[in-house]
């Protein structure tokens, strides 16, 4: 009996405080918004640019990774003021960014696509499940003319951002590669970044 009464004394006020806290948190900030990445629209057609006509490869339009539920629009990205690769801006959490100063996916060399792993508050972004990919998984790029290119995962690697093999990620030639990048590890508030980066290396398998 004593235990039951003690339980009531302790848990009832705590439950009230919890309910009040939950109610208070909801309307204050949009940062607690939790939404899974939404599928993107189907690939859009387009006229290849003069540059793509020369190389025979058009700019990438969509990235599809069935194994982890990714179907994302691709937007070109450049570099930031600090020299780091930029991230998507049109739809930061659901789009992926292709480094447009490098090769197009399907051209010789290392093309690179990045995407956010999470949103402010910690909910999922487009590359939330990138770490679930395994060697042999398929990564598909649909270019602006509708041509589909299939790449196969060859390796996953985690790097500290200051120690990453940048030449390997951006500058490997002698093959047709597509490297996917997102963040990993723990958040460092003082640096406003995570401790690690995940790079998924893939190699062109087929084009049709």
């Amino acid at each position, binding site marked *: 009996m004593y235990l039951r009464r003690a339980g009531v004394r302790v848990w009832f006020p705590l439950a009230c405080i919890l309910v009040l806290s939950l109610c208070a948190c909801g309307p204050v900030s949009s940062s607690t918004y939790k939404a899974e990445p939404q599928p993107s629209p189907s690939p859009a057609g387009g006229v290849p640019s003069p540059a793509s006509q020369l190389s025979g490869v058009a700019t990438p339009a969509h990235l599809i990774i069935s194994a982890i539920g990714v179907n994302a629009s691709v937007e070109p990205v450049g570099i930031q003021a600090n*020299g780091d690769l930029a991230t998507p801006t049109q739809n930061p959490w659901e789009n992926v960014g292709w480094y447009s100063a490098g090769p197009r996916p399907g051209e010789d060399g290392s093309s690179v696509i990045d995407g956010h*792993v999470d949103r402010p508050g910690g909910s999922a972004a487009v590359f939330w499940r990138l770490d679930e990919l395994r060697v042999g998984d398929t990564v598909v790029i649909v270019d602006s003319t509708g041509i589909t290119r299939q790449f196969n995962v060859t390796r996953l690697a985690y790097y500290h951002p200051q120690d990453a093999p940048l030449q390997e990620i951006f500058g490997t030639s002698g093959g047709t590669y597509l490297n996917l990048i997102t963040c990993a590890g723990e958040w460092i508030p003082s640096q406003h970044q995570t401790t690690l980066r995940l790079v998924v290396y893939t190699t062109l398998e087929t084009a049709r």
Partner: protein
Amino acid sequence: MKFHRAFVLFVSQVFLGLAVASMLVSVALFTVWSHHASAESPSFVRVIHASPDIGTADVFVDGALLLSSFQFGAVTGYAAVPPGPHKVQIALVSKGINSAVLTQTLQVAPGAVYTVAATGTQSTNLALKVYVDNNRLAPNTSRLRIYQLSPDAGNLNVTTPQKSLITGIPYEIASNYLTVSPGDYHFTVTSPTSNASRSIDATLDANKITSLFAVGLVAGNPQFAVVSAQVDGVPGLPNTGSDPNPSVSPDNEQPFLPWTYGMLGMMAVLCMGGWGYLRQKAKKQS
């Protein structure tokens, strides 16, 4: 009662043990995975032929022919090679590996980027000099590095018509990287001790890395010359994470609506009332 306490203690200890074990397993797995990844990264090596006493040559790496008919002053692109020690041999073209005039073992690290220069003369010793490169791009600017590989030129100065870029680069030394504005340049490389100079026109593109190699002999053949090579700079890795506990900024703050205050007040009153009722009931029962 004793049994209840013992049971709670047992369950809490089991959970504590599981938590510690899972943390240890996670750390171990991550360490193995991370180490495995870095060990697989190749090294990147380019080669320049800057030895005046070696004619057109064949270059062998670990016994296999890597470059054939490699001419004086030629610069290769960066090639990926497995990290670790590599035996490099240079032989006059078509003479075969057994006639190598230069044999040297080079150690290359995973992920690192190198320029390897065949330098020297028979009298000053033929050698392979290794330079660690950094091809990180500087946004909207161009980076420039000068390699002094001319055996008899002494310390070199590099100028443009507008200004002096760098002075006193000793033999077999590479300068620091200079950051310059993109554009067309007329570079002059001068040897003050030999009173010799050579000029070269080069277009330095944004986000690219340009190398100027001083090669050849001031007093002899092949003659003193400047060779340029340009490669794409590489960006740093992007920041694709987000703050899991962002502070509320004025941009994303949503104001309390009047009904929110009312609802919270009602809930607080209900909670306090319920708590008081239950407390009174408990007192009566005791």
